[in-house]
């Protein structure tokens, strides 16, 4: 049996291919972010009397570094389509915090280790349920999230019943409280953060390949260590971020900067850098607002800032943004209408055996309505058609343009 193939499919010539990806995109975004920071500092300082003293700077820096780390590591979680995993892991941390508090009292280091262990257990639990039963991963994550979080809340209630004032600090793990960041914890955050960034840079290509194509990756490298490394990085970032964002909203700090950054980037390195910048901005500003007015928990403020960045990115990013898309569609419609009107004039003229036959305007407006009228105006402006009363005629260059177009698309 003879196989039929289309006779020819033209290979499109590609005018963009040599253009560097997203020219200056990173620098532009960095510039915009810096200006946004300046503006934010100015406004809060001038109109809301926020004092940028030493304590506030420590808090702001702490929030910014944690936001940066969340953005960087969150990019991988988002691209692996494991956004919800971050949510499950952060909620799963709460019982660990409570148990650590019951054992050793209010020592931040111990609480964070407890959080990490519980979060890690949550991850193992999800993996075990998914691989040994027919329960799908999203359901397994939902169950784990709810169960661990419920246990954590119950334990917190018990703690509150038993002890007095000292337990108040635990509430910060639910909604986040950046004001608790002191210089020594900032130094720890910076140290661990540097290690995380260094590891990400060192294993960049392994992380990238595992994220993009885990099946192919498994044929050319040992993927289990990389998989374990990435999970560890995610857990560590979540646990550190809990202090400022809280277990309920931590997922937002992990996901939102990455989602926003994806809108503006064409390559993974651009996305990760931008997500870091966006995360730092949201973390820093959220921490400042919260610390300046001590009544407000930090988590919601950070997530509001991050969500604003996401909203702007979804609307206005070039190539992927909604506004861009609408504008492109409109531009295509307009040029489509111009071409069609030109060809209608040409066809009308041909059918009268005269290249320059006059066509009544209703012929065009009847076919194309408003866009047709605008297209006629454009053709007149560009010397491709002339008007006499309510009748239209192609000019020499209009005739040429129509013939050229019809030839190209034969």
């Amino acid at each position, binding site marked *: 049996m003879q196989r039929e193939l289309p006779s020819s499919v033209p290979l499109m010539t590609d005018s963009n291919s040599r253009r*560097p990806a997203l020219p200056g995109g990173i620098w532009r975004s960095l510039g915009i972010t810096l200006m946004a920071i300046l503006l934010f500092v100015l406004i809060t300082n001038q109109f809301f009397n926020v004092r940028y003293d030493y304590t506030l700077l420590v808090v702001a820096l702490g929030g910014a570094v944690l936001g940066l780390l969340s953005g960087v590591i969150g990019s991988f979680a988002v691209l692996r389509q494991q956004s919800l995993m971050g949510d499950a892991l952060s909620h799963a941390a709460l019982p660990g915090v409570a148990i650590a508090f019951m054992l050793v009292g209010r020592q931040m280091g111990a609480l964070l280790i407890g959080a990490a262990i519980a979060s890690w257990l949550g991850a193992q639990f999800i993996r075990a349920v998914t691989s040994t039963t027919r329960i799908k991963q999203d359901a397994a994550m939902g169950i784990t999230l709810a169960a661990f979080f419920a246990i954590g809340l119950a334990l917190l209630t018990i703690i509150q019943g038993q002890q007095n004032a000292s337990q108040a600090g635990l509430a910060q793990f639910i909604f986040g409280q950046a004001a608790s960041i002191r210089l020594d914890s900032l130094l720890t955050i910076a140290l661990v953060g540097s290690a995380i960034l260094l590891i990400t840079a060192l*294993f960049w290509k392994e992380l990238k390949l595992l994220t993009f194509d885990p099946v192919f990756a498994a044929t050319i490298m040992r993927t289990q260590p990389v998989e374990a490394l990435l999970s560890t990085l995610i857990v560590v970032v979540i646990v550190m971020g809990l202090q400022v964002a809280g277990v309920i909203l931590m997922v937002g700090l992990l996901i939102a900067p990455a989602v926003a950054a994806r809108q503006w980037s064409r390559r993974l390195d651009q996305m990760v850098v931008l997500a870091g910048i966006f995360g730092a901005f949201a973390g820093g500003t959220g921490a400042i607002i919260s610390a300046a007015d001590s009544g407000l928990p930090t988590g919601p403020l950070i997530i509001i800032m991050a969500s604003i960045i996401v909203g702007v990115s979804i609307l206005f990013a070039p190539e992927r943004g909604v506004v861009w898309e609408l504008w492109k569609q409109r531009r295509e419609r307009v040029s489509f209408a111009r071409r069609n009107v030109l060809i209608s004039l040409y066809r009308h003229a041909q059918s009268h055996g005269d290249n320059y036959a006059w066509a009544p305007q209703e012929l065009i407006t009847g076919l194309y309505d408003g866009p047709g009228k605008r297209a006629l105006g454009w053709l007149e402006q560009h010397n491709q058609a002339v008007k006499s009363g309510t009748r239209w005629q192609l000019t020499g260059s209009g005739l040429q343009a129509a013939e050229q177009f019809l030839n190209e698309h034969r």
Partner: protein
Amino acid sequence: MPDQTPPIALDIEDLTVAYRSQPVVWDLDLHVPPGVLMAIVGPNGAGKSTLIKAALGLVPRAAGSVHFFGKPYDEVRLRVGYVPQRGSVDWDFPTTVLDLTLMGLYGKLGWIRRPGRAEFDRAMHALEQVGLQDFAHRQIGQLSGGQQQRSFIARALVQDADLYFMDEPFAAVDAVTEAAIVNLLQELRSLQRTVIVVHHDLDTVTDYFDHVTLLNVELIASGPTTEAFTEANIRRTYGSRTLKALGVS
């Protein structure tokens, strides 16, 4: 002439793969000589992709052994190239065609090391081989389906492997891509490489391939197309009703 080449490129003995105690590939023996273009054909659910994945250790084997060039896979990993199904990845991932191609070299580069000038040149050469040199800096999400398939093949070409597995490279591609892949297969054969392709189109088996494996959970037949690709074998693979529907007589 092919005296210096090792006697067998892929040697599978007694392979069984099961999913939830349901056999997907049952007690299969397969011997692929080097330098052949082999199609694996069979109905949906016959275990074609699973066979490839089990050979590459991507799905666990319930029983059996697999050897490439007389050695277990772990010892010859870099001599075996793989083109997964196009739909197995998210093409909206932020990366360029060139970068995707470079991923084929990550195995040879080893841990931590970054691709350099030499790797870039090799990747560009592979893109020329599949006709995508002008698209090197495009985002992969902007490619057509056929171009995506060709970029996947370019990624495998830079591996410079002795044996290639390709999982349905002809699925839903345009004519240009189909012709480009056929040319590449011929080129690989002329270089004495072995290529094993999961294939769906029975009409083109004899045109594109010199060897064929007919599979339906169990091995039906395997060998040169002239010997193995017989009406009786096809009927045993697909069942006679399906065969009529396919218009093969």
